[in-house]
């Protein structure tokens, strides 16, 4: 129950921050990716703001033996840059550039009544399933 409550509060902060920074606006995201056009550097500032907090906090938090409400930290321990990592990220970048949506804003759009985010969520999950099939 505690885990669920923290996840809910954390999600609310995330969704609020995403909408405040206007990263829920796909046109703004595509304008960021359009360095040869009418470039909008806002996304860099969103990342800088987020990274300033996470870099500071994560390194303090990860010095603890465990998180407050669970037995262990759950994260990838892989440290090798491999083909799936680079290929997957390149494919993601193409989809991002086409649509203007990464996964976070696709979810947040539901709270804004965006019809586009419904299309995004359905096709995201189709992509998830397709990857599971291919991986087998």
């Amino acid at each position: 129950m505690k885990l669920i409550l923290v996840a809910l509060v954390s999600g609310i902060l995330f969704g609020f921050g995403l909408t405040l920074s206007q990263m829920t606006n796909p046109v703004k995201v595509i304008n960021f990716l359009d360095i040869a056009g009418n470039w909008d550097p806002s996304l860099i500032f969103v990342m800088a703001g987020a990274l300033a907090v996470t870099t500071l906090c994560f390194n303090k938090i990860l010095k603890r033996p465990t998180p407050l409400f669970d037995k262990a930290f759950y994260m990838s321990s892989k440290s090798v840059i491999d083909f799936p990592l680079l290929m997957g990220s390149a494919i993601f970048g193409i989809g991002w550039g086409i649509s203007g949506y990464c996964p976070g804003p696709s979810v947040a759009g539901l709270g804004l009544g965006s019809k586009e985010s419904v299309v995004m969520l359905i096709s995201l999950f189709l992509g998830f399933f397709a990857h599971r099939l291919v991986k087998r």
Partner: protein
Amino acid sequence: MNPNKYKDWCKLGFRPSPTNELNQNLLNLLQIMENFTPFSAISGGILIGLSASLLLLFNGRIAGISGIMGGLIHASREELFWRIAFLLGIVIGAFLFDQINPGLYQARENFPVWLLGLGGFLVGFGTRMGNGCTSGHAVCGIARFSIRSIAATITFMLSGFLTVFVIRHVMGVTL
């Protein structure tokens, strides 16, 4: 360009005339400033950073949206509920912001659904194959100096730049 803005700049001493190349560059620069929203971007970013730190400190989880969503497909019961709560939180957070600032968010009109679907499919497939997206790799991974996340972030940024370059400037399509 907005004619009122043009008048404002003239009052400030700028006299950009579109016929002069140097002034055209100045106009382009001012146009960029019009779209650029650094303060809301940083404040929103800080909230996202706080959210990710909270989830790590209490639950020991990485706030990677593609990972949290992808995990819904094969999650155990215990795993399922916090994931749903987090995603529901994102929807509530966005809804709250929109209630406080009505009209700020404007939906994009007339974007072809098939293209959006194609984009979404590639985002879904790619983020699972590459083990993360903007939040998991760029916001959380880089913070713990993971070389995989740094490599992934550089890759999807370059790929995104290239994709938009090809669509807007090679194919000449602006949607």
